[in-house]
């Protein structure tokens, strides 16, 4: 019986698409009639009967579809549902089709072959025991009523319940077609202040005089917006991690930010410029997190500001020096993070006109190929390239593995050069291994021969081979989605026993994903003697751990780099100056100068443990190659650490916005 319905659905799109001249010709093919006749046991159907039947059936189906549309209109929907058709059938005194309910559209499969086209509804075989054994789905939520202000005395408040004041399309239109006069009707829209209303009226007047001028756009911010801007930027670069997380959350979700976008953009680009010169790693990280948050905001049209943002991001990837002590600070994490940001913006913003991706790729390749390039920049280039996806790795990085391997060999096995170079070479090696292994694992045919690898990839060959084997094994295992994670621990006493992942999960209410404690952390916590053990009661630790893959035989912690940052709450931004007190070689502790007794009253301890992929775990997950866009939940950018929000002193999302 469901055949009928299938036909109705099959014919609907045709009816909608057909332009008028062809309307009378839309008829079911006679083959369908034959097929249906056969299905009910009528063997030989005359060709004429088929033709007559198909015409009749087409007509009736159209009739039913027209009636069904009535039900759709009265149901206040845009989508025709199966129940509409049932009702239409009922109207015609035809028994409706039972058991063919579907809220959503019906997924038709399309097949063609031998010049014939066929739409069919795929009916899968279902194992009943599966259905019986699956737990019942959750009961859907009941209908509920929620009230909000759509408009207050003619002005639409910018609250999450309302759409963004200037939809993305409009922002785009404004930036691409500035001559287009603001659409009437939209000018009344709440966000735009009275001033702009006057301007658009003015523009209208101009139009009448056949004068088309670029409408002046307002860059004035209301007092509330200025306050908000000040608060947000201070929080973003300030020392209080909780505030920062909230501020970033606000940037990433607030629908009414577009007017402040130019300021944010300039803030970031200027901030990067200044702080690169001063080698202020922490601030650079904060700024990059702001970029990330801006990109995550679905209501912003960032294209207009890429000319400021992209140089800033690229700087953070390839700059020669990003921190005061390149031998100990983990600027690598920042490079990785920025590289991912770059890849994400390439993916979202690259078009045929701006060619961002190819321009960026060119920049990276050029400086990578340069012999004199330092290891830091080299690392950045490779990171930037490899985040762009497996294809880029395959075409640009794999062919250069041999050369790069030779260079690494020269550093690691050659005469002792500076320690910095050695670390750099190590990082480059692990980076190459990490990214290339997954790509090779996918593309290279199976026998993983150590010698063959050496022949193909030179010095790095054997290590690569073992990585590839590991990657294959893990891919086969389809292990749980582990990897770079964010862990937020909120607990009264600062002990680093690591069953906290559970606590963190429940505590970090807004944390995008708290998945699993990476192994490196577990190891770390077993060593209470490290500086991670906090001594003063009111401090915060941002623990970032990464591991140099080269020393995979070592304890992971040895390769890991921990930055501990302790600061007083509410201290000013610029006071964060890095000072390292490290006992273990790669451990770094950043301590803010302002760390005083101020924070002592706060009993709450927070650990943001940010771990970057160890070579072991990453080889597994980096097969995804590139960041999935806007997937903050799985994104490895754990710098955006979820925090338990303490709402004291911060006005929640959007309420500061006056518009």
């Amino acid at each position, binding site marked *: 019986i469901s055949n009928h319905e299938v036909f109705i659905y099959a014919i609907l799109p045709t*009816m909608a698409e057909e332009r*008028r*001249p062809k*309307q*009378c*010709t839309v008829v079911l093919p006679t083959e369908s009639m034959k097929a249906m006749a056969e299905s009910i046991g009528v063997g030989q159907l005359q060709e004429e009967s088929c033709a007559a039947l198909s*015409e*009749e059936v*087409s*007509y009736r189906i*159209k*009739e039913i579809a*027209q009636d069904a549309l*009535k*039900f759709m*209109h*009265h*149901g*206040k*929907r*845009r*989508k025709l*549902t199966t*129940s509409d058709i049932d*009702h239409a059938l009922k*109207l015609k005194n035809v028994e409706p089709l039972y058991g063919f309910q579907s*809220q959503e559209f019906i997924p038709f499969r399309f097949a063609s072959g031998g010049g014939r086209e066929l739409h069919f509804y795929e009916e899968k075989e279902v194992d009943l025991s599966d259905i019986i054994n699956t737990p019942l789905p959750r009961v*859907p*939520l*009941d*209908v*509920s*009523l*929620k*009230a*909000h*202000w*759509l*408009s*207050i*005395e*003619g002005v*639409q408040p910018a609250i999450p*319940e*309302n*759409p963004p004041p200037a*939809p993305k399309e409009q922002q785009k239109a404004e930036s691409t077609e500035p001559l287009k006069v603001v659409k*009437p*009707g*939209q000018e*009344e*829209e*709440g966000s735009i202040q009275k001033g702009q209303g006057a301007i658009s009226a003015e523009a209208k007047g101009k139009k009448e005089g056949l004068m088309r001028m670029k409408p002046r756009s307002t860059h004035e911010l209301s007092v509330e917006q200025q306050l908000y801007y000040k608060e947000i930027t201070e929080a973003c670069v300030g020392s209080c991690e909780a505030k920062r997380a909230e501020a970033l959350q606000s940037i990433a979700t607030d629908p009414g930010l577009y007017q402040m976008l130019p300021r944010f953009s300039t803030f970031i680009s200027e901030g990067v410029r200044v702080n690169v010169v001063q080698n202020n790693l922490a601030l650079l990280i904060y700024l990059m997190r702001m970029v990330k948050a801006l990109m995550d905001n679905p209501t912003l049209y960032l294209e207009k500001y890429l000319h400021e943002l992209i140089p800033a991001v690229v700087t953070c990837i390839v700059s020669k020096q990003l921190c005061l002590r390149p031998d100990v600070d983990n600027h690598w994490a920042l490079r990785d993070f920025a590289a991912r940001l770059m890849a994400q913006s390439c993916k979202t913003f690259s078009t045929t006109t701006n060619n961002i991706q190819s321009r960026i790729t060119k920049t990276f390749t050029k400086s990578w190929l340069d012999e004199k390039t330092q290891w830091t920049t080299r690392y950045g280039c490779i990171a930037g390239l490899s985040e762009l996806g497996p294809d880029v790795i395959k075409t640009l990085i794999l062919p250069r593995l041999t050369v790069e391997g030779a260079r690494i060999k020269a550093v690691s096995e050659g005469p002792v050069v500076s320690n910095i170079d050695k670390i750099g070479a190590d990082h480059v090696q692990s980076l190459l291994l990490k990214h290339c292994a997954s790509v090779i694992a996918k593309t290279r045919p199976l026998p993983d021969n150590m010698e063959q690898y050496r022949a193909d990839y030179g010095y790095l060959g054997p290590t690569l081979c073992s990585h590839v084997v590991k990657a294959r094994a893990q891919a086969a295992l389809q292990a749980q989605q582990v990897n770079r994670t964010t862990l937020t621990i909120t607990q009264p006493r600062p002990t680093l026993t690591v069953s906290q992942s559970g606590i963190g999960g429940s505590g970090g209410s807004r944390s995008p994903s708290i998945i699993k404690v990476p192994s490196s952390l577990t190891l770390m916590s077993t060593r209470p003697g490290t500086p991670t053990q906090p001594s003063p009661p009111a401090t915060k630790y941002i623990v970032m751990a990464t591991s140099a893959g080269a020393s995979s035989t070592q304890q992971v912690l040895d390769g890991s780099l921990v930055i501990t940052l302790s600061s007083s709450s509410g201290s000013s931004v610029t006071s964060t100056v890095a000072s390292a007190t490290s006992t273990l070689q790669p451990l770094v502790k950043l301590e803010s100068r302002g760390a005083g007794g101020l924070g002592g009253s706060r009993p709450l301890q927070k650990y943001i443990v940010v771990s970057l992929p160890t070579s072991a775990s990453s080889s597994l997950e980096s097969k995804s190659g590139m960041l999935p866009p806007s997937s903050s939940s799985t994104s490895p950018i754990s710098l955006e650490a979820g925090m338990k929000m303490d709402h004291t002193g911060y006005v929640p999302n959007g309420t500061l916005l006056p518009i």
Partner: protein
Amino acid sequence: MAAVQDGQLNLEVEKDIKTEITNDGSGNINANSSSPGSTSSGGKSKSPAGSGEDQQTLLAVLQFLKRNKLTESVDILRREAGLSADADDSPVSESAGAGSGGVPSVGADGGDANSLLSRVSIATPVAPPATAPPKVVAASGGEDQPDVNVVLSAYSQQGDPVLYPLYYNGLKKFIESVLDCHRAELSQVFYPLFVHMYLELVYNNHENEAKQFFEKFSGDQECYYEEDLRILSSMSKKEHMKGNETMLDFRTSKFVLRISRDSYQLLKRHLQERQNNQIWNIIQEHLYIDIFDGMPRSKSQIDAMSGSLAGEGKRDANKAKVFYGLLKEPEIEVPLDDEDEEAENEEGKPKKKKPKKDSMGSKSKKQDPNAPQQTRIPLPELKDSDKLDKIMNMKEATKKIRLGPDNLPSICFYSFLNAYQGLTAVDFTDDSSLIAGGFADSTVRVWSVTPKKLRRVKSAADLSNIDKESDDVLERIMDEKTASESKILYGHSGPVYGISFSPDRNYLLSSSEDGTVRLWSLQTFTCLVGYKGHNYPVWDTQFSPYGYYFISGGHDRVARLWATDHYQPLRMFAGHLADITCTLFHPNSNYVATGSADRTIRLWDVLTGNCVRILTGHKGPIHSLAFSPNGKFMASGATDGRVLLWDVGHGLMVGELKGHTDTIYALKFSRDGEILASGSMDNTVKLWDTLKAFDDVELDDFTAATGHIHLPENSQELLLGTYMTKSTPVIHLHFTRRNLLLAAGAYNP
């Protein structure tokens, strides 16, 4: 008024023309008209339609009416038929007027039947003005639908199918060549001609020719007919025509055109010269040409009014007097007021008196000349609780915000969450304390939006234990245990498409796909009555502003007026040619407006059951209606995304508000009528300045008489604000007594 008299005076001229034509051309119907000029057959070849054939037509019509259960019409028709001897006394329409001419031609006979029938159709416009076909076709015996066959039989006359495109093209060329001022008017003929020529071809089994004809000329038709053309195009066989409702509409109702006398004569002369009988026959039989004197209308004027399934409304259809004024408010406030006032505040008193005078005080002194008599229709007595409510209303009214372009209302939006696209209807009580939603899953849900929870009355056993003398007996009868914010009413067996609270908040009406209208008690939260009668989906229902009466309309094209205590309808309003999509009571409860999928709005007199207004101009099914609080104006919204404003008293379109991009499901005037709010499927609420809209219209006697209004192109100036929701279609709007705008819709992620 002048124009009407002109029409009468010019009847003589009209007669002459008619006779001329019958003499000249229309006689030879089956004569081969292929060679223009060669036909020279005598004028009177049409066999005079004997009284027997007249009788036959009447019988067919009667049969048709009976089948559609239009008993009232049948009665009227019977009565009229008895009087048919002196049917000539009042020439109702101009074409009928031709009948009084002395020439005993077919035209005269047809005119007789016409005048008779058109009188019927004025009384109850559903009666198909089936013109007596000159030759009654021998309907194939054993048909189960003889009446339909009779109706269709007019198509039996046919010319050479090959020539149809030629005829049409010839006319097209002619119309394109006439003076600009006439072209727009004459172009109106294209669509009905096209439709009827196509149907004629289909009826006579010229399937391929029909298809070709359609393909060739369908592109020329106005875009707003697209919907109908689609239906038409699917009809390619004679068998399809039977039982197709749209098809019947084309046939049973004459397509009404308004053409100025000059243009009409131009057309006639052309057709005579060309001996183009085919077209002339169609014009005569299927078109009703409403001729007026004066300037031909412009294209925009025509476009504003056309678009309905059956052309424009006839001019005389909108001539009946409509008492659009408001009823006098009963003077109950004063004594009760004082009690209340003393208890509360002193300064409230003088304030309260004033607005009363503003709003209705002056009217309550002397009868508004436009208002119907207080007792024109019996209204329910006011109960004490109603009086209390009225007092509340007055109090609130004093706090009402004066709205205007500089003082826009705040909008509070009620989003239905997790409705899964199932919300089909919403209503608020007048005091905005309750909100009800009808859902596609057949349920009706009622929410309290005030802190006061919904409670059920105790069961009968418990009620008997209550001390009936106590002061708080009304409190005591309620069952505290049942208090909740919302209640669900089960009873329907199909999606609930219409919902309406009674003014006293004791009852709720809901209409559903299952063909019933149900009355629910909001005291016990149970179903009290199921009103059956529609049998088909009931699209909308609404309580009278005074309670007791309610109106319902649905797929069966008949609007029914009910009283809550009668299980059968009191009135049936038939005349729409397609589904009735929305219904609305006039604020004075004496009239009822219905909007339909035939793209017309009709206003019905509750007392007489007559249709007193036919308003055309929408290009899509009408889905929302609203009366201004003073009863003088009406607004309507349709799937075409336009809001049209109407002057009820004159039956004129007075404004067009463009801006929405999808169906308008909700319209509401503010409490003082200064602002019109419209809510649409395109997820916006728009506010319009209606004061300005009504001011901008210049109404002189001529336009009032002819209805040819120049619509100012000022939608953009009238638009006061647009408020986007976040993916929530707006399906209901309501102004609270203090002029706060409430909107409702289901969030549709």
